[in-house]
Every structure is written in C-alpha cells, then in structure tokens.
C-alpha cells in the first residue's frame, strides 16, 4: 500500500561564493541531504530582499533558509553584515506576527564546509517537517 508521506518544500538561498560552493562540496563528497531543499543561487546573501522570503512563503514554501559566507569572509567585504541586521529584524517581526520562528533560518556556510551544509539542511528539513505545512503564510492565489 502506498503511503503519502508529507514532504515539505524548502527554499535555500545560497550565496555564490561560499554556501553554493559548500553545497557543491557536499555533493562531491557524496553527503546526502533531502531533495526537498531547492537551492537558489544568489550573488551574495545580502541580495536576498525580505520580500523574496515572504514571496517564497506566499507561493507555498514551508521553510526558507538563507546561507552566506561567515561574517568577515564576505566576497564583497561587508554584504553579510547587512544581511545579518536585516534578517534579525525580519525574523523578529515574523515572530511578532505569530509566525513559527523555526520556519526561517540563517546559517553561515563556507565553501569548505560541505559537511556542515548537509547537516544544516538535514536538520532544517527535519524541523520543518515536524512543524507541518505552512498555513499562516501561504496565499492560495499564488499556489500553482
């Protein structure tokens, strides 16, 4: 008998210089992480506008994770410092509106940390799976 298991939709914004390469390394090292994670490459973590995150939720994502270079290692010197401030405020605001704070996360993953990338994604998917479907932030009109 076929059982329809709930699989969350996860969007991972990865910076081109560190985290995307980290994801690549996880692949080359044959470390596995769930296929539910859809990686979107961005030039820098600070390219991620808060609207991208809300838009992802609106269109049916169950969790959004943002990965960038470690603070101090940004390819553009200071991009991730701005990300850090923006996301601290945005996540705090989402929490204020009563949205589960486990659905959003920021992680710093360098190009050498394939193992960390895989572990982070495994952990995040597990957390979001436990939370279940995103009902509070979806918009039925945007779901295809």
């Amino acid at each position, binding site marked *: 008998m076929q059982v329809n298991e709930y699989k969350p939709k996860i969007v991972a914004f990865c910076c081109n210089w560190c985290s995307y390469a980290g994801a690549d390394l996880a692949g080359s090292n044959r470390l596995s992480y769930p296929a539910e994670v859809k990686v979107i490459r961005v030039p820098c973590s600070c390219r991620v506008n808060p609207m991208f995150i809300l838009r992802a939720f609106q269109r049916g994502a169950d969790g959004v994770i943002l990965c960038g270079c470690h603070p101090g290692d940004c390819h553009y010197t200071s991009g991730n410092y701005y990300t850090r401030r923006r996301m601290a405020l945005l996540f705090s605001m989402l*929490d*204020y509106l009563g949205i589960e704070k486990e659905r959003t996360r920021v992680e710093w993953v360098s190009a050498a940390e394939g193992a960390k990338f895989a572990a982070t994604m495994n952990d995040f998917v597990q957390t979001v799976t436990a939370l279940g479907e995103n009902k509070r932030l979806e*918009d039925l009109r945007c779901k295809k």
Partner: protein
Amino acid sequence: MQKITRDALIEKAQTLLDSGVVTRVLGWKKGDFDYDVTPALFTDIESMKKDFVFGDFCGANFSKYLLKETKKIGVEGKVLVFLKSCDTYSFNQLLTEHRFDREKVYAVGIPCDGMVDVNKIKAIVGDGIVSIDDSAEVIKVETLYDGVKELNKADILLERCANCKSRKHVAYDELMGEDGEVIDSNRFDEVEKLEKMSADERFAFWQNELSRCIRCNACRDVCPACTCEKCVFNNPNSGVENKAAANSFEEQMFHIIRAFHVAGRCTDCGECSRVCPQHIPLHLLNRKFIKDINSFYGDYQAGETVGSRAPLTNFTKEDLEPSEAVNREDK
C-alpha cells in the same frame, strides 16, 4: 504653553509673503466638516484668510509634500511650511536622504500640544457631528441628535499624541513660541504587551487587525519615509493584483514589507495609523522595528540629526545573529 492661533500663523505668512521670502504656503485647509482638515497650497494671502485653518485637527505632516513642491519647474522662491515638533523629525530624515532641496524651503516651527482623533470623538458622541469648537481645552461638539457635548481634550488625543515622543523641534528656520523637550514616553508599552502573548495569540491578534485592510495604500502614500517613485507593490506580475483575497496573507505581507522598508528610517510620526480608514494600529509594526533596533543596535531616533546613518545601512562586527534575535528572553 503658549497657544498658537490661526491669526498668528496668517500674520506670519503675510509678513513672509510680503517681504518676498516665500512665494507660497503649505497649510491646512478646512474640509467639508470641521474635522476633515486637508493639506493645501496657498499662493496668496486672500485665499489663506478665507480657507486656512489651524486647530486640533491639523495632524497632517507636511514634510512629504515638500518633495513635490520643491521639484516644481518654473516656480520661483521658497515655500513656507509649518512644522509641528514631530514633523521636524520627518523633515530631517528626508534631508538626510537628499529628498528635497533645503534652500527652497522656509520652515516655521510651531508648538503643538497634541492633535485630536475624530474617531475617538465619534466613538463617544456617535454620528451626526455638525460642528466642533476646538478653541479651548474643553472641546465642544455639536451633534444633530444630542445637542452640544463637551469633551476633555486629553481623552480624545490621537494615539501618537497621547504617547508623544518629543515636543522639541529639531529643524526650523524660525520658531514661533517656545521649544519643548524630548519626552520619555510609554510608546512601547503596547508592543511589549503583544510580545508577552503566545505566538498563537499574536497571530490571532494580527489576523484580526490586518484582515480588515482594504489595500487602499493610504498608509504608504502618507508616510514621509515611503518616498520611492516606483513602489514594489505596484507590480502587475505579483499574481495577486486585481483578485479578491482568498486568505489574508497578502495584506500581512504588504504590512510587513511596508514596515520593513521604513525600518530605521521611520521617525514614528504616526501618520500611517492616523490615516488608516480601517483603524489598523499600524504604528505597532513600526514601533516593533524601532524597539528592536534600539535594543539590538543601540538607541537610534531617525531624523534627530541630519546625516545620521540609519541602522540598516550600518553594521558592526559584533552584531547579534538572527537566531539570537528571535530567541532572546528580554525582547
């Protein structure tokens, strides 16, 4: 405090117009009723004597009007603008962002002891307001059905005035009356009350408030910090344009992003809540950001000085992590 009268303002405008310092005046004009005062531009003293009003319903902040006014082509001379203390913060913030030419503006600071919220009056006296006499501390409201009712001004102040943060003018060319002080207000009390609720309660609270939103964009249009010429919400490809909302997230997203776009630049002038036709307490979103910024990155008051660096365009190497921000005990 010395009460500034309509006549004093007209006299000031006349002096400045006659001496050629200014060529036009941004002021408040009477609407259909005593309480729906609207902003207007006066170019001569006669029209000003006829239509200009100054009273307890002159809440409108003129700072944003200066953007258009100073960019007019073929118009010579300065524009005279009357600024209440809270308006001067927006004025400075716009100057910081180089949004208008200071040389084309003549700012007169006027003292303010709070503006009145007509919705609070309506809640007390009901419908059918014929006229409102706001010349004294006790406000007389004449209604169709109940005759004249007297209300205490302190009970019907606008939310932002009841929690006034500063009576000090931070920008002006000339000040009428005496300057006030920065006030240690309780404006974050409501935010703290919400923070203490559980996540489900907060969600229910905001669902209730934001689902009333009709997306009229009044909060965006009036906001002196929202000055983009092209707004992200005027996007025909968003997938949600011209369709009735199936659930309320679009409104939530609008309000989160609206507040986020002014985070660190919002002076807490309270115009958004004042103009909201659905009475959504939008200031609670802005104040949450202000409160977070103050506690995460140190106290910051947008518009206090010209040229200060907004917290979101700044950083330190020791800033806290987003995960710490949402898990703090003392927030």
